[in-house]
């Protein structure tokens, strides 16, 4: 793995690790950091020779001199920038992080939900129990790097058998004029029978140059439910590598909605859901809109380990200009996972001759009494539909927007929050190019 040596950030990160060793930290976390570093040292930053990174080259984005860990700016940002993330008409509990650092909440959260910084909660038994328990690091170099060197992040806990009257809106602001490499580590635990809605919005202040390598572990206990929305709308000079690792217990319901919008030059989502118990339900919805030279890569894994679980995944992509999309969706149905229902679909719309999509649905079944299907399509806007709309007086631009919204409808109609659905539809419309 010699190529790593040429990246200055590789050495900087190793130096950071020696500094971390001096700091006081719970021994259990420290041990996980050490183990993870060994994994990362073995793999290094992935190159296109790694199967999982075949279509996504990250090293070109890692050439700069980055500020890492302690040298990353963490100043609060002006309230004005928070408006970037505001969802009109939606009342929610807003929580803000800046470069991964949890900010004091403006309005106290209800007592049944606790959100603390990782540092503050590091002695917490719940945190120690679940931290690093969901993520599998072996083939995940960025997750290993995050585990070894994470700085900041939050621990969110929802009390058993409770719910909230409105969603939690987690606004993650990225802000740094100089190149910064940011590694937040988050843990979300939804206790038995609890129900929560979490909306994460990633935004950036103008001119920000931040590379994010985040890991969020999500634990759903028995009968727990989480509606998890992720809105990626940071600016062009940001790169997002976001890993979301979920573990589901019996009768739990996890719904993830990932919206990757124009902006960040590189987005790589690793969404891994482990169905660790029977009778679980999982919905993964995704919509990616790529413009300019964007590269948006969604890798997902649904691991059916136990019988009687249902999973459904639908990702839709709209690619414009010279944008590239990657969809790689794995569904494993292990030998014990009889009576599994697993569905997966990926549809893509290319609005430019230079746009690209690499779509790879993957289904591996080791059980014999299951219902599974997967599929992938690539297409363009129908000329006949365009003409029909235009012949009624609708401009070409509006007609395209209507058809793209219609294409995305299968995903957007699943959004359980009307204000958010409207917000996403507006975002889609706003990014439809005027001309061919």
């Amino acid at each position, binding site marked *: 793995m010699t190529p790593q040596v040429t990246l200055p950030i590789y050495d900087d990160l190793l130096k950071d690790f020696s500094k971390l060793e001096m700091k006081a930290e719970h021994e259990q976390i420290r041990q996980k950091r050490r183990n993870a570093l060994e994994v990362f040292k073995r793999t290094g930053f992935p190159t296109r020779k790694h199967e999982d990174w075949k279509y996504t080259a990250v090293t070109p984005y890692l050439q700069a001199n980055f500020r890492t860990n302690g040298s990353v700016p963490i100043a609060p940002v002006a309230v004005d920038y928070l408006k970037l993330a505001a969802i009109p008409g939606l009342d929610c509990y807003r929580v803000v992080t800046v470069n991964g650092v949890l900010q004091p909440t403006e309005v106290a959260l209800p007592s049944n939900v606790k959100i603390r910084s990782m540092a503050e909660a590091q002695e917490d038994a719940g945190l120690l129990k679940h931290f690093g328990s969901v993520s599998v690091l072996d083939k995940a170099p960025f997750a290993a790097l995050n585990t070894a060197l994470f700085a900041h992040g939050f621990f969110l806990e929802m009390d058993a058998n409770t719910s909230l009257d409105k969603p939690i809106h987690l606004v993650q602001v990225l802000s740094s004029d100089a190149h910064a490499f940011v590694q937040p580590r988050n843990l979300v635990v939804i206790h038995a029978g609890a129900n929560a809605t979490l909306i994460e919005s990633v935004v950036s202040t103008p001119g920000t140059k931040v590379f994010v390598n985040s890991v969020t572990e999500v634990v759903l206990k028995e009968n727990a439910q989480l509606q998890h929305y992720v809105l990626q709308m940071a600016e062009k000079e940001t790169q997002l590598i976001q890993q979301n690792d979920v573990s589901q217990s019996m009768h739990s319901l996890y719904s993830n909605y990932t919206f990757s919008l124009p902006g960040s030059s590189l987005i790589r989502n690793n969404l891994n859901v482990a169905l660790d118990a029977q009778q679980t339900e999982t919905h993964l919805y995704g919509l990616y809109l790529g413009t300019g030279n964007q590269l948006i890569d969604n890798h997902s894994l649904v691991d059916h380990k136990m019988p009687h679980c249902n999973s459904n995944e639908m990702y839709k992509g709209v690619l414009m200009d010279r944008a590239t999309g990657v969809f790689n969706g794995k569904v494993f149905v292990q030998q014990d996972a009889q009576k599994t229902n697993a569905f997966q679909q990926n549809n893509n719309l290319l609005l430019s001759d230079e746009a690209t999509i690499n779509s790879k649905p993957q289904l591996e079944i080791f059980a014999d009494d299951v219902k599974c299907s997967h599929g992938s399509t690539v297409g363009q806007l129908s000329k006949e539909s365009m*003409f029909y*709309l*235009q*012949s*009624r*007086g*609708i401009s070409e631009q509006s007609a395209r927007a209507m058809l793209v*919204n219609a294409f995305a409808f299968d995903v957007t109609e699943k959004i359980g929050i009307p204000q958010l659905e409207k917000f996403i539809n507006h975002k889609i419309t706003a990014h439809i190019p005027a001309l061919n």
Partner: protein
Amino acid sequence: MLSIKNLQAQVEDKQILKGLNLTINPGEVHAIMGPNGSGKSSLASVLAGRDAYEVTGGEVEFYGKDLLELSPEDRAREGLFLAFQYPVEIPGVSNINFLKTAMNEIRAYKGLEPLDAKSFLKLSKEKQQLVEFDAKLVNRCLNEGFSGGEKKRNEIFQLAMLEPRLAILDETDSGLDIDALRIVANGVNALRSKDNAFVVITHYQRLLDYIVPDFVHVLFDGKIIKSGTKVLALELEEKGYDWLKESVHAPIV
């Protein structure tokens, strides 16, 4: 309102219209008949601005404007409407939002304020009744899962809402049972006025029993070869087209 002079058009190097002349005035209903492949639907497509057709000669003036220079949407905004032979199904686009967008873009073109939600709803209710269009269909996705008859009725409902100056009905009667045909025809008759005009393209005289035309034209081999009143349609029903074709091909003495 519409003046077509020596119109010639081709699709993929195949000449379809070969010097077509037609003048239409407000208040008139023109029927265009003709055998298969004579260019009837092509005429509708060329007038509405379909991409695949290339105009190679002639001119079309619509209220003093060069129609052929306008984009399809601007033709619609100027008051031209094409009822499609095969209306397109567009899942994910609601019928009502589609109409609202269309109506407001046309209004904006004319310098009018968009219609508020209440007035739009009221208008939509009135027109639904006028053309006997099922309210349930209005709220569905555009033509998605509609029967053939429902699609055609939706075309007439759109026509009623958009109030064009010139409506071209491209084989609106094809695929309709007799009841649906009557409903469609009643809708058209209810919308006729001294200010608007209709071009009804059809194979069959049957539709013309319901929508009585002022003029009947026979299109053959890309040209209008005979024009007359509704009596001509009856004659065609009886004799077919062959006697006319022969007259075209007959050597000039």
